[in-house]
């Protein structure tokens, strides 16, 4: 056996087919011990560290961080006997003959418990649905004659008359289309018209594959734009944070009926208050931004309107109102949008809140936000103002019932004490889940946030 051993990506969680290399903890030339963590891999189920299977010296890393690798593909080569002198020339044994295990039981990746791509439900434990057939060795040329006990070659008994009717080319007709309920749902979700398909399943029924193929086709000619110049199109695989964001947004936008309201407010006093806070010695060490006071405004307004901080629990037929606020802050990172949250933000002092927000943003930008920080958010703020826009109509993070968009603060002509003055003005946009929050409650909540930002001192004195 070769002293160079190649470690292939194992199935880390019952039926996974791929994993993304998050980071390498070792580099070529490193001496490693048995079970030393060497690489961090993220699968559809979890991000895990893989311990080295052999002690030795790392001789090759096959895939850089950020690559998605199939289960069974080699990811690292280890010289298990580095003391034995120079390596022989790379031979067929060490390079070409890498045995890549066939990927079995391919399962569409997806979030546990959530909808996975293709309309399947992701599983927490156990094998996912299998949708490839097993590979097997070819039969010998002449199999031994079957004994009398062997079953005859299978021929379907001519029982079901429907099965013998021509099915493959069933033309679209007014007859009801045969399809199983999950396939119908998938078709609905993907916007595929079942009646336009020729089913390939039993009795001409439409299968999941039929629907997926139809959905994958770049739409029938005529109706939709054709590809203009494929050479100038780039195709980016949808994965990681982008995939998660897409799933979350679709899940939220098509379950929670969104309403968005806007309020333009004069925040001159807030900006002045901010200057005063910055000047205080206890705030000298922390970064203080308008977002801090917007967060404070939201937290105080939640106390006055607790219902906005709730979750629609369709499964139990309940609305879960939370007496704590895990305040989410949408953060643009290199890997995409993430919404980590400050746990129990309502209990924090202003100074603690400022620190928590800074840490949150810094960790997010460094790409190291742990999943726990992204879980359990109850209400969020998206600070689109930093991009110079006035406001937006944000989509709720799944499970939350309100999200505030905070636009840019701009000097604006404004009626102030019956005169037109130049004031610092911003526009707030509040999206909320209309299943829980009616227009009245949403409006009051937004109005209170506006009141605070218009006159923070008196709001603080009169509310708390």
């Amino acid at each position, binding site marked *: 056996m070769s002293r160079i051993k190649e*470690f*292939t*990506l*194992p*199935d*880390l*969680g*019952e039926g996974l087919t791929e994993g993304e290399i998050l980071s390498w903890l070792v580099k070529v030339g490193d001496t490693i011990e*048995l*079970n030393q963590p060497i690489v961090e891999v993220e699968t559809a*189920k*979890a*991000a*895990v*560290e*893989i*311990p080295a*299977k052999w002690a030795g010296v790392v001789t090759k890393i096959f895939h850089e961080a950020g690559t998605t690798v199939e289960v069974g593909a080699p990811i690292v080569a280890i010289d298990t006997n580095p003391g034995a002198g120079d390596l022989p020339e790379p031979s067929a044994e060490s390079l070409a003959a890498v045995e890549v295990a066939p990927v079995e039981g391919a399962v569409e990746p997806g979030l*546990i418990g959530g909808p996975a791509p293709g309309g399947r439900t992701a599983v*927490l*434990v*156990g094998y996912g649905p299998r949708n490839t057939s097993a590979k*097997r*060795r*070819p*039969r*010998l040329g002449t*199999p*031994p004659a*079957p*004994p009398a*006990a*062997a079953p005859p070659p299978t021929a379907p008994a001519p029982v079901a008359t429907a099965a013998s009717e021509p099915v493959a080319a069933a033309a679209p007709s007014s007859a009801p289309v045969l399809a199983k309920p999950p396939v119908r749902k998938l078709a609905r979700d993907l916007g595929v018209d079942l009646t336009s398909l020729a089913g390939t399943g039993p009795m001409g029924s439409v299968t999941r594959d039929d629907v997926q193929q139809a959905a994958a086709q770049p739409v029938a000619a005529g109706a939709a734009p054709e590809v203009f110049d494929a050479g100038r199109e780039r195709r980016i695989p949808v994965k990681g944070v982008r995939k998660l964001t897409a799933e979350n947004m679709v899940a939220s936008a098509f379950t929670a009926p969104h309403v968005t309201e806007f309020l333009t407010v004069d925040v001159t006093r807030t900006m002045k208050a901010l200057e005063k806070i910055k000047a205080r010695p206890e705030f000298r060490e922390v970064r203080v931004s308008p977002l801090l006071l917007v967060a404070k405004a939201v937290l105080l307004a939640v106390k006055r309107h607790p219902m906005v901080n709730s979750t629609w629990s369709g499964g139990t037929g309940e609305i879960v109102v939370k007496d704590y606020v895990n305040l989410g802050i949408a953060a643009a990172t290199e890997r995409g949008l993430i919404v980590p949250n400050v*746990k129990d933000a309502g209990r924090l002092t202003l100074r603690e809140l400022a620190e928590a927000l800074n840490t949150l943003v810094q960790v997010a930008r460094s790409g190291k936000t*742990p*999943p*726990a920080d992204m*879980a*359990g958010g109850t209400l969020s703020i998206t600070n689109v103002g930093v991009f110079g826009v006035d406001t937006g109509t944000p989509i709720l993070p799944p499970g939350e019932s309100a999200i505030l968009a905070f636009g840019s603060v701009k000097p604006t002509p404004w009626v102030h004490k019956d005169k037109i003055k130049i004031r610092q003005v911003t526009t707030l946009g509040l999206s909320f889940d209309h299943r829980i929050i009616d227009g009245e409650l949403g409006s009051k909540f937004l109005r209170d946030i506006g009141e605070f930002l218009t006159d923070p001192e008196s709001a603080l004195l009169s509310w708390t």
Partner: protein
Amino acid sequence: MANGEREVGADAPAGGFVQLLTPDGERVDSVTTPDGTTYSVDFSDDEYRELYRDLVTVRRLDAEATALQRQGELGIWASLLGQEAAQVGSGRALRQQDMAFPTYREHGVLYCRGIDPIMPFGLFRGVDQGGWDPNEFKFNTYTIVIGAQTLHATGYAMGITMDGKTGNADGEAVIAYFGDGATSQGDVNEAFVWSGVFNAPIVFFCQNNQYAISEPLERQTRIPLYRRALGYGFPGVRIDGNDVLASFAVTRAALDQARNGQGPTLIEAYTYRMGAHTSSDDPTRYRIASEVESWKAKDPIARVKAFLTKQQIAGDDFFGDVDEAAKKLALDLRERVLAMPDPQPVTLFDNVYPHGSPEVEAQKAEFERYHASFEGSAS
């Protein structure tokens, strides 16, 4: 202080629990529960050291298994990390004649029964069905179905009573292991009913590790689990599940009750699963990091080490030896796991009937011919 004479520590849940060794390694002489039972242990220095060795060993073997799964050598692994004290304490309290009914996580109990730790690895590596002779080891097969083993254990316990094997100080007793999630199963409640009504010689040992996979305890019960026993007509005791001494003392007393014909006891070992439910689970999706951190401070092994050090029962030499011996066992286990042979397809037909069956034999022969029809078949 409903559950003991001493002041309930900050680490105890509301209502208290039996704790004989605090997280800081302080010994509590004895604890008396409201029903008047006093629990204590009287170990020699050697016995204390051996308990420590057990705890470290089962944790080390478990870590090796977790690594093997991550390296693709096991299909799945259910780690016991954090639950060592509950398992070692209760496992060491068992006598030779007692019978244990485990779940799929009782690797520590298995070890304490003196069984070769490799025994369940065939199941997790997928090279056998996880079958072994329960009578040989007085240790039933790992039961994957949640809570099912409590009924098997109850039936077994009723059986040994009928066989006249209980009712004296050297009688037999049964222990059934399960988790907090299993208490919501019908099986477990039926087992409680039957055991209570028939005064079966059984100890129900519930490792409450706070989560039924992702579902938290508050989704299982509105009262502490140990108090449920009262409704079935037998005593319930809660122990600090991270305290190996409490686990030993209370299990021993409950087993003695059972073997003497005094009927069942429910023990709730209040503990925490430090790792994932299984290697297929990501606990960061449903637990917050601060909770895990708070349980790290209650580590079952660190407190024994602190106690041994403070009492000068053991020093660095001993701890180093234990670590080294555990590592050696783990590496030996690794080698043997990697060397496990793949099963032959025809073994499928073994163990169907104890004395065979012409029909199964015919099917087996046909299956063998079928397999021989492929290229590369060993003939």
